[in-house]
């Protein structure tokens, strides 16, 4: 299989990363060489193998439902690029 400019534009949209034409062309080359390398996995017969989703095969521990962080609004908002003290501010989304 091979990745073309159209695919790059589609992935760029899904990843919410804008790429210009020049960069998109470079990505076609890069991703194709990486996917050529990945294709090696097709040599293996793996229909009956169970996928490994987590290396630590433990079940999640339950914890008591208690509030641990209180009144941290200031901390949460502290690093925001734009806020009005109570809320994050973003470009207008409704007309």
């Amino acid at each position, binding site marked *: 299989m091979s*990745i073309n400019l159209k*695919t*790059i534009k589609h*992935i*760029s949209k*899904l*990843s*919410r*990363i*804008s*790429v210009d034409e020049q960069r998109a062309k470079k*990505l076609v080359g*890069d*991703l194709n*060489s*990486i996917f050529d*390398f*990945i*294709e*090696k*996995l097709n*040599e*293996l017969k*793996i229909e009956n*193998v*169970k*996928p*490994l*989703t*987590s*290396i*630590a095969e*433990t079940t*999640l*521990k339950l*914890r008591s439902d208690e509030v641990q962080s209180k009144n*941290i609004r200031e*901390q*949460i908002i*502290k*690093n*925001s*690029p*734009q806020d009005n003290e109570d809320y*994050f501010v*973003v*470009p*207008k*989304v409704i007309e």
Partner: protein
Amino acid sequence: MSEITKQSLTELVESIKNKKLSSSEVTNAFIERSEKSKVLNAFITEDFTSALDKAKKFDQKPNLDLKLPGIPMAVKDLFCTKNVKTTAGSKILNNFVPTYESTVTENIWSEGAILLGKLNCDEFAMGSSNETSFFGNVQNPIDKNLVPGGSSGGSASAVAGQLTPITIGTDTGGSIRQPASFTGTVGLKPTYGSCSRYGIVAFASSLDQAGPMAQNVKDCALLQEVISSFDAKDSTSIDFKRSHYSKDLTNNIKGKKIGIPKEYRVDGMPKEIEDLWQKGIEYVRDCGAEIINISLPHTSYALPTYYIVAPAEASSNLARYDGVKYGYRANGENLIDMYEKTRSEGFGAEVQRRIMIGTYVLSSGYYDAYYLKAQKVRRLIKNDFDEAYKKVDAILTPSTPSSAFKIGEKTNDPVSMYLNDIFTVPVNLAGLPGISIPAGHDAKGYPLGLQIIGKAFDEQNILNIAFAMEEKINFKNKITDWWIK
């Protein structure tokens, strides 16, 4: 003063405990040397003034029962440090000042250590040469214009260059062990679940582990003892009985069975790596261990698997950088335009490339063909190790397929850069502990490392083997201070 920075962590702890040195003297010595070593570009953020204050405070009321009493140390800039800028080597976090502390660094400060600053690394730990950092290349103290490896390149450079007595890095596919190998230092990647991931900027959550980097095995064991802990804040942290790694350290490895995997003898491996491995085999044999040939049949599938799993997880983890809650924001005509420009301007080329690979392999219609397949092969790779560990206690391999390369040598070919991690990646996929120790030099005089891979939670055993080998190898790092005028 320079004598102080030459001392190992263990020696410095002794000196402070015996009151031969004060924390201020030690801290000052490392700061002075760091000031003269700006050429290395090891630091992203220096916290020297605050470090000296903390050292002074420590000296006024020293608690000498702590494991790292008044010891200054710099850490990889991937660990969130409260009120100290944390960038992950990225423009997108260039102005991020965490309001909380990572568990691993919290553990370190509560044993008395003092933060010197934050060390350079590849952007979001994605790289093998430190060349993807927004804050520029790091120089390897071994030679001019040589990469220190990556992603924990600043960490490795700072330990080898004696700007910090010890440090911590993170390892997703080799990011502690490969730079340790390139700089003649010791680096341990612990078992997945041994060190909390809380407060570490996430790259690939099923692979990321923090670990110690040091000048010798004993220092590494001591730091591992401090950073490894069960943490309820990390849902994959594992509650197991942890050893007193430094206290229980022994060079007695008689009767240990060491596996030599034939698949690691890869095509085109330089003869010096082959010879080094052979020498390593003789060293462990001299220590009374038994050598057993083993097979890890799916080794050659590890890198292709990794380059599906890691980017997939990264694309998901890095979705949080949207210019809204923290970090860099670009101006956009509307919300979507703002997202797209923020991420395009904020992430560097390698990070964008990996987010795109990850997005693609997870996208509708391709999930089964890539991500699910990779998870299945990951199982086969883990099974290989499980089989091997029925016969052996640990596995010995080279750490990297070459010594350090020149800055710029591999930046144009992503796949050739990825091949650096051929011996380290399988260990992350299987969640095992692995340690790289310096074991010799190549013809150019650059250090080469050997890797010891252990069973899950068996850090003590690989530390012991490394300790025994270290004694036999008697490696001397060739640091000429070429960067100090």
